């Protein structure tokens, strides 16, 4: 290779564009660090053992915590994941592996549409579907609302990541005599696993921070809720209520709550990654 190849202008463009991408990454990361720092700075005072173990106390009284909201969010997200992830995952598998033609197009299109519905509208929908006939609010309704919100993202991201797996792997599997289902389960999904987990975690993160759909479904609770059949407290709703209140102490607790929510998602993400890190992806560049 002679020294003049690639030509100088290409080298310049190379450095320039690559630096731009670096800047872009830096920009995005610094925004996150700023948000995290802000939450810690303003909420740190409220983060103590009581925050994680005690029920909220009324305004004006010192202390108290968000224990019921933390557990409540956990319960709601568990139910939402149980509804949203299987349907989305399996639907995504259909689109990537079995589907062809107008039905697949309709499903992808519909998923994008459902994704764009404001979360409050989904909340109103589930309210009419579940809360009104039952005549009471429930964690079940909240979980269903969040679950419906999870389906489109789970479906589309699974679809995209499965399709990104090269066909050579599918052909290889079939050549060995495996059925389509076996190929998908044992070869394709593991190859796309990193991406699928990314999609699920992104999904969970987005849904964990949603307030509006819970206002009319899970409602909220100052106390512990038993099971999934009664009003349930959740972190985003409590954060919302505290943030817009007049009380300074509640504002600080709201920031602290935001930090705890992020920390919870962070930990869940790590756990999920560790669980799938054993699998190797042969398609990885």
């Amino acid at each position, binding site marked *: 290779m002679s020294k003049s190849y690639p030509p100088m202008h290409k080298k310049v463009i190379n450095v320039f564009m690559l630096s731009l991408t670096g800047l872009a990454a830096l920009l995005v990361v610094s925004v996150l660090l700023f948000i995290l720092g802000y939450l810690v700075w303003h909420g740190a005072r409220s983060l103590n053992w009581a925050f994680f173990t005690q029920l909220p106390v*009324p305004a004006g009284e010192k202390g108290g915590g968000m224990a019921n909201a933390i557990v409540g969010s956990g319960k709601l997200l568990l139910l939402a994941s149980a509804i949203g992830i299987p349907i989305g995952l399996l639907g995504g598998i259909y689109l990537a592996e079995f589907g062809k033609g107008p039905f697949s197009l309709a499903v992808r299109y519909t998923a994008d549409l459902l994704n764009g519905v404001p979360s409050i509208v989904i909340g109103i929908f589930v309210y009419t579907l579940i809360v009104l006939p039952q005549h009471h609010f429930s964690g079940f309704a909240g979980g269903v609302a969040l679950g419906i919100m999870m389906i489109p993202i789970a479906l589309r991201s699974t679809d995209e990541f499965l399709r990104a797996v090269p066909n050579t792997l599918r052909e290889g599997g079939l050549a060995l005599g495996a059925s389509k289902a076996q190929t998908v389960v044992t070869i394709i999904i593991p190859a796309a696993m990193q991406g699928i987990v990314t999609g699920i975690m992104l999904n969970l993160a987005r849904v964990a921070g949603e307030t509006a759909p819970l206002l009319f479904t899970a*409602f909220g609770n100052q106390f*512990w809720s038993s099971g999934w059949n009664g009003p349930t407290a959740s972190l985003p709703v409590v954060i919302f209520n505290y943030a*817009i*209140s007049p009380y300074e102490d509640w504002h600080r607790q709201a920031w602290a709550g935001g930090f705890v929510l992020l920390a919870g998602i962070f930990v869940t993400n790590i756990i999920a990654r560790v669980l799938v890190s054993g699998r190797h992806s042969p398609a990885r560049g």
Partner: protein
Amino acid sequence: MIRRCLLLAAFTASASAPLSAQQMNLTGAGSTFAAPLYQAWASDYAKLHPGTQINYQSIGSGGGIRQVISGTVDFGGTDSPMTNEQLAEAQSKLGTDVLHFPVALGGVVPIHNIPGVSKDLNFSGNVLAGIYLGKITKWNDPEIAKANPGVSLPANDIIVCHRSDGSGTTFIWADFLSKANPEWKSRVGAAASINWPVGIGGKGNEGVAGFVRQTPNSIGYVELIYAVQNKMTYGQVQNSAGKFVKADLNSVTMAAAGAVKSMPDDFRVSITNAPGAGAYPIASFTWMLLPRNPKDKTKAAALKAFLTWGITEGQKNAQALTYAPLAKQVVDKELAALTYLHY
């Protein structure tokens, strides 16, 4: 993996307290303004009556009214009384009338940020209406100057801020402007959400307060509690007796006292522009909504006891949280009305 999930699920289910036989769970929803009060009451009441859990969530006065009508909650909280149409709807859907009981008082105050002006300004109802109608556009308008002699007001444009979200606070503000200014009444009217002629919409008290704080030459309105808790400066408003009154717990309570003579038996009354020299004109009750003949009589009895406690003992909480307590005449009238509920 599956086992871990099952264990996690079992843990979360058991982390919730099981219901004992004497447990009384009441659910309430509505006014965001009154939420801290109901929640403080619930906490104190639970200490006196262990086993009674009163869960109140703020989803807005309109939301509270709708949930009461739908029967999904046991009681509601609202900053503006139900209309006759809503009562009729409740009658047909619930099969019973809905009663209003005032539990506390609140006020709405004008906040402003004028560079060079550190004094709290005096506003008359007509001036406020003129500003919010877009007819008074500059701070040195003669109408404003007339009420504030000795204050040098700049010739800057007034930047108006109002609430974007429907709220009882807006209703009280607009209700006062309707009473003070006929043009406002015919052009805009009073409701939780209105078609504002001018101005930016801020979400919630903190949206309006934040905007006014950051924008020179702006004016807005917030709840009295919010202004006090956040140590904001706010202006005086002229009442029906012609005096410029600053909002505080005292002047708000006086507004209620002034209205008590003409209070209807169902307590659905607006006390804006109330008579009385010391009355603050932009004040309002916040009501608790109870179905008159609910299906569950034990719950109803518990609610009645809670309400009785709230309007008597509970008024101490009110002051600590910057709600104006009910005037004694109002409480007496409510207690009398409560005796007619037989459960």
